Each structure stands twice: as C-alpha cells, then as structure tokens.
C-alpha cells in the first residue's frame, strides 16, 4: 500500500487548463437558451456511440479521462444509458448496419439533446465516404450541433467541441 500512495504523491496533479469554445465548429446556431446551457455546462452527461469508426477516435475519447485532460474535473462524465445523457458524441461514418442503433439511441435521449460529431468521418464521411454499406457523415442520419474534424481529433479538440456545444454562441467557458 505504501508504494501505491508514494506513487500517487510523486505523480502529483497533472491536469492542464481546458481549451476555450470555438464558434466555428457550430453546425446549428444557438438552439438552447443561455440558462439551460449554463446548467449543462456544470454537469454534462455524455453518451458515446461508435457508429462505424476505425476505432482511432475512441483512443482519443479514452484519453479525455487521463490525468492531463481530466474531463470529469470539469463536471463532464460519460454515462451508460442515453436516458441519462444530455449530449450524444458520435464517431465514425455511420455504417448502414449501425444506422438504426444510432437513431434509436438519439430518440431515447431526453430533450434538449445535443449532438457532437467528431473525426473527419463523422464530419464528412472521411475516407470511407458513402457506399452500399456506409451512410457517410453523422448529419446524414441525425441532426448535428457541433462537428470536430481531425483524424483523429486531439483530446483538446474534442474537449473544445464539447465545451462549444454547451456554451451560448460568442461566450467563453464559465
């Protein structure tokens, strides 16, 4: 036990400052009123759905939980049920085999529901594009509020996308 405690003390706190929101990532302007966003920004529940990614974006979503980004420290947590979620985080082009599962997840969420599409595939269909097996970008299947490009986007960029989604346009993170 002393080794474990010593390691914790030695490691210290590594958490870095969170990025500022970026209005250029917005796909739909100001859907929610300021008060709702203010509340969400303090305790946001995210449901993630991988709709057909290469699993690269998932590596960076996992990284959000590491001590450097410490996303839970901002009051943001990942939940297991869409019923508990305020924001749906979607990765990948949407495979046709996942189209219905993604729609059902979206429909199961309570209003107001925010959608964040991440990665080049989520934003445009990426290298996979549209085909007999792929619906392409997430917005082809469900409405998207904020889209973050990158292959994969860095954890800081994903965090910036999340913070953009819960801020009123033109305001910094409070």
């Amino acid at each position, binding site marked *: 036990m002393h080794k474990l405690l010593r390691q914790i003390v030695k490691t210290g706190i590594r958490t870095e400052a969170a990025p500022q929101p970026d209005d250029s990532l917005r796909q739909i302007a100001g859907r929610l009123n300021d008060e709702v966003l203010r509340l969400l920004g303090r305790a946001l529940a995210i449901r993630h759905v991988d709709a057909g990614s290469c699993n690269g974006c998932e590596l960076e979503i996992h990284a959000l939980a590491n001590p450097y980004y410490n996303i839970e420290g901002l009051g943001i947590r990942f939940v297991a049920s869409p019923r508990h979620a305020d924001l749906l985080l979607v990765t990948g082009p949407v495979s046709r*085999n996942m189209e219905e*599962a993604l729609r059902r997840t979206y429909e199961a969420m309570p209003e107001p529901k925010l959608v964040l599409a991440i990665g080049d595939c989520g934003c445009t269909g990426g290298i996979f594009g549209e085909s007999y*097996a792929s619906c392409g970008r997430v917005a082809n299947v469900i409405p998207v509020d904020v889209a973050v490009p990158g292959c994969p986007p860095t954890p800081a960029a994903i965090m910036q996308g999340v913070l953009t989604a819960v801020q009123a346009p033109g305001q910094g993170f409070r």
Partner: protein
Amino acid sequence: MTPAIPGLRLEPLAGAIPAWRVAVDAQGWLRACEAVAARGGRLAALWGSDTADGGAGTYVRALLVSHEGLICLELRVSEPDAGFPDLSDIFACAGRMQRGVYDLCGVRALARSGETADPRPWLRHGAWPRDVFPLRTEVPAASRWPAQPDEYRFVAVEGDGVHEIPVGPVHAGTIEPGHFRFSVVGERVLRLEERLGYKHKGIEKRFQQMPLAEAIRLAGRVSGDSTVAYAWAYAMALESICGSQPSARALYLRALLLERERIANHLGDLGYLGNDGGLAFGLAQFSRLKEDFVRANARLFGHRYLMDRIVPGGVAVDMPPAAIATLLDEADRLELEVRSLRAIYDDHAGLQDRFVTCGRLAPDTAARLGVVGLAARASGIAIDARAHPGHAPYTELQPRVVTERAGDVAARVTARFEELFESLRLERRILRHLPAGELCAPLAAASEGGFGLGWIEGWRGEVFVALEAGAGGEVRRCHPHDPSWQNWPALEHAILGNIVPDFPLINKSFNLSYAGQDL
C-alpha cells in the same frame, strides 16, 4: 525452402517474406490445407474476389502459414452454385470467414455432405438484400437499398433456470459496437455467442476505387489502433508487386514505429485492466504514461498514433541524432516507471484475485481455434511473425517471443508487461544501430495482375494484406485481415464457467478489434 505439398507445384512470390502461390482445384484445396495443418501450420485468412472484368469468374483464396512461410491457395469457382470445400473441419477459424465470403461474393462453403454448415449471414445485416453480393464487379459501390429485415437466429440454450442476456450493439462505455448473447444460470455463463459485422462499411469495395499508392491511407484506417501494422503490411504487399525493397534505414524506422505502437497500446490496456479489476489507480497511472508517450510521437513524428508515417517505398519520418537521445532517455524513464507499477500490480491481492484463473483459455483450446498474437502467446503458443525467418529487420533485431502458460487474464497481463519491456529493448537497439540510407525510394510501376502479400505482427497479433494490382495503377482487390477474426471465437470459450461481471475484464484482456474484422 519451398514447402512440399504432394501433387502441387508452388510458385514463389517476389518480396520481403518467403511466400508462394498455387492454383488448385477443389481436391487440391482440401489436400493442401490438410497437409499444412498436419505439419502444425495454420489458416491465416480466407477471402473471395470477383474478377469478372478479367473474364475469370470468382476466386476464393486461402492464406496458410507453414514453417517455411506463406502459401496462398487460389481456387476458381466457375459457377456460384458449385461453392468451395468447407475448411472448418480442418481449421476451426474458417467458419466466420467463409460466411463473410458468401455475404460479399455469393459463393458458399460446402461440407462433404453438400450442405453448408452454418448458412447464417455474418457481415450482412439489413443493409443489402440477401441475393445481392456487394463485392461482385457488377454491383456499383454507391448502390443503396432500403433497409432489409434483419433476422438472426442465435443458438438457444435450454434448461431449468437458463435465461438470456442480450448486450449491444451499443455498449455501456466507449467501446466499438457488437452484440453479445449470454446464456446464463444465475451469474454463471453457460454460453456466449457473438454477433459482429455492425461496423461493416464496405472497406474492400472502397479499396477498388483507389490508386495503389493512395490506398495505404485506407489500409491505415482498417483498425486505427493498429495503423502502423496495417500500413506496413500494405506497403510490403505493394513493394513486393513492384519488386522493390526499402532501405535498411527505412525498415529500421518502420520497426521503431511498430514497436512504439505496441508500447502505446500495451500501456493503455494495462491501465484499463487495472481499472476493470477495481484498481482505478492503475488507469490513472498508465493513461498518464500513455499520454506522455503519444505526445512524444506527435512531437517527433507528427502524429500521436503514427498514422500515415509509413508510405510505399519507405517512411515519411526521420530520426535526427537529437531525437535518438530523446527517445533513449524516454525508454529508460518509461521502463523504470512501468517496473514500479508492475510491482504494485503484482503485490495487490485484490487485483490478483480478479486476474488469476479468470477467463482461462487452455493451450489446447487455443491451438484448436487457431488463436494468434498476444492471446496465443499467453496460452503457451509461441507464434510471432517477427520471429519468422526472413522478416527484415527483425532477423537482425532478434526479438524474444514472450510466452505464458496459464491462458488466464493474469497471463495476458504478464504477457503485456513482458512484451512492453521487450519492445523497449528493441527500440533501444534500433536507435543505437540505425543504419544509413534513404528514407523512401520511388516504386516502379505495378504490372497489371501483380499480386503481393504483407505480414506484420501488430500489437494484437498478425495482420495480413493481400493486394492485387489493376490495369491503370489502381487496386483491383485488397483484402486486409485482422487477427481478431481468429481471436473473437476464443473469447466465447474463455468466458465459459465465469460469471457475467467478469466479462468486461476478460474481454479487455483480449481487447479485440471490431472495425478490423467487420471491414
């Protein structure tokens, strides 16, 4: 040395690894597989190709690994109804691959009785009709059909008190989608049946629209966590078609990138295995080390996960002397940190209680299922493509193949620790003996119909790429093969007799790719 298979004349393939191809009829197909299996060989991959544009009909190919190297069997199926001989009696792992061949190409594997052992679809859910086969040349890539009824019959377990737990395709955490059907009595798992294919997004059809040199980017996105392994395997296949060999410096740098991919993934897994075993401390510590490590990748190589750093003909990175010193220093510090964390894991009674005897895959079961990669080595099977003769630059680097006997979660944890240390040793050796040479050599034009193979030991297991060139420098057919095809069925066995709450831990200890097998 050419493998001897009675009655067949094997034609050697040019390229970095010892490989042969041979056209066979249905009899030869079975005989070759039986001969290779009898001498301890295995089935690496099985796929179909429709080459109607060449007037040749549909081919089914089986890639075998023998002691001498790779053997690619090519069976022409003139009539779709004729099918091809079922290999699942010889190689248990063939079953799902054969179902995939039917879904995409429309030719069935037929047992000696003339029946299909398992006629259920594997990759086809509701996206296309049952009488359409998307990889056939007459089906345009952009085709779209209305959603089809998606009926799938799971094997039912009957008995007093048995009930089913369906899980997925959307899972509770940040995990790829797939469906697990547990049959349980109380907490104990009587049977697990997987249903995958949810991520099928038409990668193989997509390849066919791409120029050979550009398609390496798609290969690097078959399974993002293994991007280096796939890009190298693709480059190896293309270079073998073009008859070129990268410089020694480029090969050393590729090995450096591959070992760094292994280290990063093992760091991540060791953290999550601690976490799933109830020690959140482990996740915090290992995810910190992994973040430091991928940040170094971004600084030195320009990408956190090293995507697109391997290019046809060589590499798109260099290693100046200052960077060598940085990486040697990083390796020393990382080794110290991981050794002290390992001591904490080893001494933690609660964690070891979760790990030891949990999710055991017995060596004989692993061998029968044809399991590969880290999971095979943790069940006592000493296979590693890096240790195979002819695998430059590993023949010079002399990697140690890590094996464990127990086959449980603890063994897969130990194998990750040991492989991580071995990768650090290899990394130091590469950095200290980096040969001079050009980073990337231009490739000669690929001749139409040229065929090449790539074989790389990624962190999860062996990755294969089989590539065929078309007329205008484009891909005629590319089949990328993930080790997860072989290892997913092993998870169904490892969970037996365990309790449902141990499933996440057992699953994580294999950490298989959905994207890589769904294609």
